[in-house]
């Protein structure tokens, strides 16, 4: 009996070992290095000043702008996802699988290439303005603005919002909806009282998966913002690459991590009663 148990434990350890090695090497160790840099200065002495850098006006401004982009992109993703998923719900299985496949298809391509494509579409003489000119509409000045960054973020992260919502909504038993309809509920009531609450776990994990990466991204803003607009991610990237100040960069990263943790805490609290589908 005992032997069987220890056998089981050792097998479990064996199975978990790739995970342990992975997490130790690629999550814990880098985190320790970042934290070490964050709490030391160039001379190696302990300091809180790197963390405090986040409160300087320049950095706060970048954080606020990141927050603006992240929140508006997340909201846009939610507003786009629900109607799409609701439409897919009524399709037959074959068509549904196909439409899901079409949605995921762009993800087979490198995301930087997709963002570069958006740069071509949105630039002053780009494809969008060319099409507008056929209809004699004045060219739009979207290139290198917050709008173009948002378009890129939404485009890139939409599948991460749609897929969990899709899974949650597809799980809803059709009988529930029919019962509600029998009792006289209109479409809006059904959506608000049944579909929305039951898809909440999917929605919450979607929010986490869109909000966090868009809050910390820097490549999209670099390419679509024309280097004129700074997210906090860009500030951190430059501390590492051009200013060569790893301490400040790490300090800002840790501060941002704390900030994201706090904002996510609201989501988990809400979620405790829901089903397990959030990543933590």
């Amino acid at each position, binding site marked *: 009996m005992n032997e069987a148990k220890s056998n089981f434990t050792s097998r479990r350890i064996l199975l978990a070992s790739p995970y342990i090695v992975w997490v130790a090497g690629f999550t814990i160790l880098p985190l320790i290095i970042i934290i070490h840099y964050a709490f030391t200065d160039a001379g190696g002495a302990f300091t809180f000043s790197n963390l405090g850098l986040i409160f300087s006006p*320049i950095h706060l*401004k*970048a954080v606020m702008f990141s927050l603006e982009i992240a929140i508006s992109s997340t909201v846009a993703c939610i507003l786009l996802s629900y109607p799409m998923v609701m439409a897919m719900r009524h399709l037959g299985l074959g068509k549904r699988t196909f439409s899901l496949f079409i949605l995921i298809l762009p993800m087979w391509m490198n995301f930087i290439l997709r963002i570069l494509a958006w740069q071509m579409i949105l*630039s*002053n*003489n*780009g494809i969008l303005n060319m099409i507008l000119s056929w209809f004699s509409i004045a060219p739009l*000045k979207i*290139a*290198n603005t917050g709008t173009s960054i948002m378009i890129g973020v939404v485009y890139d992260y939409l599948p991460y919002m749609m897929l969990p919502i899709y899974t949650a909504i597809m799980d809803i038993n059709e009988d529930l909806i029919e019962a509600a309809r029998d009792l006289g509920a209109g479409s809006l009531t059904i959506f608000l009282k049944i579909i929305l609450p039951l898809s909440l776990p999917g929605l919450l994990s979607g929010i986490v998966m869109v909000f966090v990466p868009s809050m910390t991204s820097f490549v999209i803003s670099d390419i679509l913002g*024309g*280097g*004129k607009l*700074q997210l906090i991610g*860009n*500030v951190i990237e*430059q501390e590492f690459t*051009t*200013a060569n*100040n790893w301490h400040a960069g790490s300090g800002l990263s840790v501060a941002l991590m704390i900030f994201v943790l706090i904002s996510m805490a609201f989501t988990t609290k809400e979620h405790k009663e829901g089903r397990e589908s959030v990543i933590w």
Partner: protein
Amino acid sequence: MTMTKRLISITILTALLSSMLLGCSSGQAKGELTVVNYSEYLDPEMLDLFTKETGIKVNYEEALTPEEMYAKYSSGAVKYDLVCSSDYMMEKLIKDGELKEIPWDSFENKGNIGQKYFDLASAIDAKNAYTLPYFWGTLGILYDTTKVKAPVDSWDVLFNGDYAGQVIMQNSMRDSFMVALKKLGYSVNTENPDELKEAQELLLKQKPDVQAYLVDEARDEVVAGNAIMAVVYSGEAYLGHEYNENLAYVVPKEGSNVWIDCFGITKHCQNPENAAKFLDFLCREDVAKANFEYIYYSTPNEKVIEGLSDDEKADETLVPPANAMDNCEVCVQQSPETTELMNELWKEIKAE
């Protein structure tokens, strides 16, 4: 099954053994040189030619940026005999005592390199003891001649609002500050905080008129007609003109940054004679010409310049005119305090 397994293990074993043998033979052997250079910065056929002529084997490695080159060099995993990098990085290597003096006496072709390029390089290597100029160029304005209202000859066009929203600046601290400092008539290597702050004010005021801060795409945006003008390196401007013949390049009259990439012999080099042979080989007319035609940056080799067609000679992106260098300066390493201040000021510009 067993057969395949055996085959695999034999292959792995051979690979291991041969790499060990190679590992032993490379590096210190007399007939070899290990060189690190920028990627696509030397005609590979010239390496074969050198080996054929001298019997010296060349292990050639590439790096993308000066920083990457430095990381490769300083890790010490490979002992390089020769390095080629940009002015400020070579200056750092000289100051750190990483380079050996070049034995100029053994050179046959040093005279092909114009004296003015050695003068240029003296900004980073005062006695021209450590570095051989390899390629050089300027930073200037690439513009669309069909869209400008008046001839472009001054940095003013980037700041006076005539081309608001049509200007592309370099997304690089030193390069953008250079433009502002030169417009104000200051040195690109200034250590004076007031001058830097004045330059920052100018760049801040300019920002609403700037379409974007780019590096690699700056040229393409002008080629595609998305912008009227961009601050670019002369080599990029040559390519831009190849794609769109309405484009022209000018080094503004206030002066600019002139960059120079140099070769140097490292302190690890066991056989400086061979290294000198390689550098001398690079100075030879036919070799320098092949490299020039491979890269199309400005060459400091006057024999090559003499042999160019009239069209090429007239192209300022290939052969900058004599006076183009008059007000130009080489970027040198600034004091840590100045670098820090500049970083801070640049961050404020980007955050605005």
